């Protein structure tokens, strides 16, 4: 262990430690689900998350009763923290799909043990993302007008608007993600059912397992369905996050009207999504004592993904500056100077440091092997990405074409309550996933164990 902390992993480093066998893996992971009472750290974490969730409930009640004036959004800056955080949350969720679907297609072995954490994270983050635009509607009760039905009004949604594509994308994405999660967890639910000792748990997991018996035909069907769904999900998540980018790019506002936005958003999703998975994996690993299953191999691989993501982001940031400065458009240039040296400058520069410069430490094997540093760097990336979303959302509106239309954005207490509350919702959901579903994909890690034995 000491050697792996200081040196690059050797070529034949085990994905899963050799002391893990098929039986110990199943029993170890299932026992976390089946134990009578959760460990103390789970209760503390869940309790704190639940308290934050209550902040969200209070915030939403105030917002719906008083109106969105409780937030700092005003003319000219009508898109504030809520919209920036929508992009931020959906980027975190997208990262989960990238890790679990894209790296399934590449047959990366490290993805097998982390994909359940990634997908649980994604299913916890997607509702937070979905809530933001609904809260941002002046009349949230009418959100169903987004559905393409016209029995009463005789009008259809504006199908040429990216905001509407966004709604359709997000809806399909969440539904697909739920089905993808379920298709993957089905054999594991059967394992938990088989190991359950009490009748209520046998019934609960028995129903969820849909009568899975582990016959060859069932396995074959499950693997085919899972592969097809992965092949759909991987491009889908790219298109979902690109459409989020088009929400901005289709606007004529300086700083938004930019063809690089779709890939730029996607780069952010890769980096911040992987970062949140790294943080959660470190916590789950220590909390549940899964050091043998989640090894240095996984962190090494995910750290490299983050590094690649931050390099792609750096490329996008170069173009973010080059475009306006090279162009002859005065509004574009003044907006960029405002973004980089004006009111939003502190956020702008700390964002660049946190998402591009600090992650360059990941070139060093020592850093990739040190979980404390990994945890801090990942946390920095997530905070940096939040800052990035806030900067490009508000700075462009603060510095629009007409100088008479310039003004700065100040979030209110309720804006911060929205952020804290959705973090509460995210963590509450994640803690529930942690408690009630196997957090490691047993079926796939068993394959890894067999592969390693064969080596």
């Amino acid at each position, binding site marked *: 262990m000491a050697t792996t902390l200081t040196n690059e992993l050797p070529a034949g480093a085990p994905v899963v430690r050799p002391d893990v066998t098929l039986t110990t893996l199943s029993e170890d992971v299932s026992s976390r689900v089946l134990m009578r009472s959760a460990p103390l750290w789970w209760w503390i974490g869940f309790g704190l998350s639940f308290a934050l969730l209550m902040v969200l409930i209070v915030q939403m009640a105030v917002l719906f009763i008083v109106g969105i004036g409780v937030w700092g959004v005003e003319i000219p800056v009508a898109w504030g923290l809520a919209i920036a955080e929508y992009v931020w949350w959906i980027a975190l969720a997208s990262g989960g799909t990238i890790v679990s679907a894209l790296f399934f297609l590449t047959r990366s072995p490290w993805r097998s043990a982390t994909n359940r954490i990634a997908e649980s994270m994604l299913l916890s983050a997607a509702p937070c993302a979905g809530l933001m635009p609904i809260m941002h509607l002046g009349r949230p009760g009418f959100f169903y007008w987004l559905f393409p*039905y*016209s*029995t*009463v*009004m*005789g*009008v259809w949604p504006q199908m040429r608007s990216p905001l509407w594509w966004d709604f359709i994308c997000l809806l399909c994405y969440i539904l697909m993600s739920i089905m993808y999660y379920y298709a993957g967890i089905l054999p594991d639910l059967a394992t938990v059912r088989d190991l359950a000792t009490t*009748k209520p748990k*046998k*019934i609960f997991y*028995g*129903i969820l397992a*849909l*009568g899975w018996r582990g016959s060859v035909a069932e396995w074959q069907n499950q693997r085919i369905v899972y592969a097809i769904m992965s092949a759909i999900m991987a491009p889908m998540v790219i298109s979902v996050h690109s459409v989020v980018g088009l929400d901005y790019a289709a606007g004529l506002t300086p700083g938004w009207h930019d063809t690089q936005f779709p890939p730029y958003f996607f780069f952010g999703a890769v980096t911040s999504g992987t970062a949140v998975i790294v943080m959660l994996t470190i916590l789950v690993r220590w909390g549940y004592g899964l050091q043998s299953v989640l090894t240095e191999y996984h962190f090494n691989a995910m750290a490299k993904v983050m590094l690649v993501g931050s390099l792609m982001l750096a490329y996008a940031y170069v173009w973010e500056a080059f475009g306006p400065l090279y162009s002859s458009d005065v509004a574009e240039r003044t907006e960029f100077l405002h973004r980089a040296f004006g009111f939003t400058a502190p956020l702008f520069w700390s964002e660049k440091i946190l998402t591009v410069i600090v992650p360059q430490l990941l070139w060093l094997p020592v850093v990739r092997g040190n979980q404390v540093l990994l945890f801090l760097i990942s946390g920095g990336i997530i905070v940096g990405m939040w800052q990035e979303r806030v900067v490009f959302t508000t700075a462009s509106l603060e510095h629009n074409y007409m100088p008479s239309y310039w003004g700065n954005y100040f979030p209110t207490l309720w804006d911060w309550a929205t952020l804290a509350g959705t973090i509460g919702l995210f963590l509450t959901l994640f803690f529930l996933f942690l408690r009630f579903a196997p957090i490691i994909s047993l079926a796939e890690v068993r394959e890894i164990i067999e592969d390693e034995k064969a080596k």
Partner: protein
Amino acid sequence: MAVFGPRANLFMTAALVGVFCVCVFLVAAIWVVPLVDYNSQQQFTPEQPIPFSHKHHVSGLGLDCRYCHTTVEESSNAGMPSTAICMTCHSQIWTNAAMLEPDRKSLAENTPIRWTRVYTLPDYVYFDHSIHIAKGVGCTECHGPIGDMAMTWKANNLYMSWCLSCHRDPAPHLRPKDQVFNPHWRRTDSTPSGDALLVQYHIKTEALSDCGICHR
């Protein structure tokens, strides 16, 4: 310990089919409920303080719409008749009729009669009677066979789709200026065509279905 019996699969399948049916039913209900007259109150005849009959006054006696609805040509509101308008006749005839008691009471106490509204539009719709009259939309286009109603009932559902059905294609709903208040008007061969009337009234159809036409 067998928890699930041999018929468990059957129950599971039935439950899944049931869930699917419930979902289909809910979607269908969302679609169908607005189309039911009960929801829009179409064809419904509310109680009124005095059982006023348009059939008797308009088709029988030949009163013009504007005799009672005095502001329909100048204002957004067609105007409900004041007690004094009723009394132009009813101070002379049927002066002791029991059903006119609220009318007399209203005059004596100087309080208006509270009619029950049949046609209600939400506040975010800026409907204006005068422009429709000025552009040749007859009363019966929206109020149905009002001249033949013994009690006033709601002839249309007032949904936005119904508004738009005319705003998107107004020509078939137009009539010559002198026929706007005729409750029994029918298009004949000698009537100018809808398109000719569009030109005559200077109606710009391309702007008629803009949001701001009704939601200002």
